[in-house]
């Protein structure tokens, strides 16, 4: 491995993009614009505040979780309703009468289990009448619960906290409207990095430059690493911009005829942006090398784009962006668990929404799996670069 050759390859990728303003806009501006649009759409769906009752059966903990949730609920657009609801029966009655939108049941022994590093489960009962409104209620509640759990177990729980869903009227709807911004960070990083490296490497193969590259003393690891670094730098900027945009809130006052508006999504994150960044970067590293690998199977740029419905779209559907992996059909679940995006989405949600840090078991798992997948793709990519082509 020669640092000089490595740097040559990295620099040539940066040089190539520097002059390509359209691609730069695609990397840096489009994801922000789409994320902003999405944030706008999602925000405006939250019409009525959620009325929630908390049934705390964890007598041993003295209602600690219930009061923590109540505290967190204030800031999350939730109204905690008491109204004589003491157990699941009265809660169901209140839901049926539309006196509340949701009831959260804390089982006995929950807090002790949580602190001991176990994986306790909460139960969430909703009306099950209006899927869209329900999604909004659930998202708000999840946020409040996450904050409450974090206040009891700083740094995030070591086990997985599950929320069992149950409805009074219909079948439980997926908890869709978890804040989308962190998830989009992962998705865009993956999508653009894959397409750009795929095309770039394809051009190496068909344009005769790879042949020429291999006629120099360059080694395979240098090529793969040089590419990873070159595109990694762009992925890094992209991720930084998206994270900053998601977290910030910049109020622009009204100027003349323009109404006042807000820049940024102001996602209420508790976690470390650095950790989110690490997760997104591991994902991008995998995408670079998947792009190199798949470029072997394409002959034209158009054929690289044909990989999008095969590689990118199914990941978007299965990786837990829109509905949780646990709610997928049994056949699809193992597939979802093989996808890097699944772990990135989970990790980014853990860090940015739930505020977990590296101590949390689920974050450790996500990072370990992402690193493994990235290493696997690096090996695949290296395997497709051969000095003796034929």
């Amino acid at each position, binding site marked *: 491995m020669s640092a000089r050759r490595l740097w040559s390859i990295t620099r040539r990728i940066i040089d190539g993009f520097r002059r390509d303003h359209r691609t730069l806009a695609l990397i840096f501006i489009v994801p922000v614009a789409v994320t902003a649009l999405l944030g706008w759409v999602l925000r405006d769906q939250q019409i009525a505040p959620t009325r929630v009752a908390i049934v705390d059966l964890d007598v041993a903990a003295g209602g600690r979780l219930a009061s923590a949730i109540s505290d967190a609920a204030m800031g999350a657009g939730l109204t905690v309703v008491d109204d004589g609801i003491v157990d699941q029966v009265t809660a169901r009655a209140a839901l049926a009468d539309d006196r509340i939108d949701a009831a959260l049941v804390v089982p006995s022994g929950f807090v002790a289990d949580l602190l001991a590093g176990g994986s306790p489960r909460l139960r969430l009962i909703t009306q099950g009448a209006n899927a869209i409104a329900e999604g909004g209620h659930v998202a708000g509640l999840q946020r409040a619960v996450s904050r409450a759990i974090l206040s009891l177990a700083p740094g995030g729980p070591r086990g997985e906290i599950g929320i069992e869903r149950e409805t009074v009227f219909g079948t439980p709807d997926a908890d869709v409207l978890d804040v989308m911004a962190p998830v989009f960070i992962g998705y865009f990083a993956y999508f653009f990095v894959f397409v750009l490296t795929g095309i770039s490497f394809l051009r190496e193969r068909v344009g005769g430059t790879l042949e*020429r*590259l*291999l006629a120099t003393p360059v080694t395979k690891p240098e090529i793969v690493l040089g590419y990873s670094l070159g595109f990694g730098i762009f992925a890094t900027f992209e991720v930084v911009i998206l994270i900053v945009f998601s977290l910030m809130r910049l109020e622009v006052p009204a100027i003349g005829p323009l109404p006042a508006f807000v820049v940024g999504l102001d996602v209420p994150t508790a976690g470390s942006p650095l950790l989110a960044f690490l997760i997104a970067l591991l994902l991008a590293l995998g995408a670079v090398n998947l792009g190199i690998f798949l470029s072997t199977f394409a002959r034209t740029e158009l054929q690289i784009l044909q990989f999008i419905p095969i590689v990118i779209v199914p990941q978007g559907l299965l990786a837990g962006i829109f509905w949780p992996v646990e709610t997928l059909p049994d056949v699809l679940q193992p597939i979802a668990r093989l996808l890097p995006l699944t772990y990135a989405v989970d990790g980014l949600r853990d860090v940015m929404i739930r505020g977990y840090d590296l101590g949390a078991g689920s974050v450790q798992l996500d990072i370990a799996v992402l690193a493994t997948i990235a290493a696997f793709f690096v090996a695949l990519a290296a395997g497709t670069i051969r000095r003796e*082509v034929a």
Partner: protein
Amino acid sequence: MSGQTLPPAIETVALRKTFGPIHAVGGVDIALAPGRIYGLIGPNGSGKTTLIRLLVGLARATSGEARVLGTRMPSRPLLSRVGYMTQSDGIYPELSVWENLRFFAGLYGRADRARLLAALALVELDDRRGTPALELSGGMRRRLSLACALVHEPTVVFLDEPTVGIDPALRVQFWAHFRRLTGGGATLLVASHVMDEADRCDELLFIRDGRVLARGSADELRRRAGTDRLEDAFLHFAGVTGAAAAS
């Protein structure tokens, strides 16, 4: 005559390369002494590019051996002493002239400014340093491609049709430079099917269907074929009946 005692710079032993039914290189035995320019002359599909790729180590031989400077190819470390100008340009269209040159020089760890400037001066692209390769004329791209192949001062140089699309004045300069390189001890193997260039080589290898038909200086080959045109000499060695009619 002392040249014959030097170990060959380029050597092949019963070298073959087949692609399915096609014998691209069909048993080639050559030993080329260093410090000379060799012309690899043959029609389209005769196996020139394939032979060069075997010598550079970009293709694996079906059987036989290819050696450069005594080292059996493929050999990655030896590549720092080898220059290869591909038949297609093999440069990055989105990069500028300077960036392309700096990239390839960097791969050899020889990207110092003076060397890059010298390489640009050779191909007369000094005034186009910042131009993206995409905006160069076809001949200029060819010139850039040559500069990239020579920037690290290789000892053995393979040039696959280097002067296609190069104007006559520059072509003369190219050959003058090739000659200077041999003065420094370099060995050049130049693939071409342009016969008027063949006369500038020290020695020619006529190749067809993956086999070397004849070898010798241009004058020698013309004399042996009993003709004063190199085209006719080629046809003579290829055993084409038309050759008889022409002579």
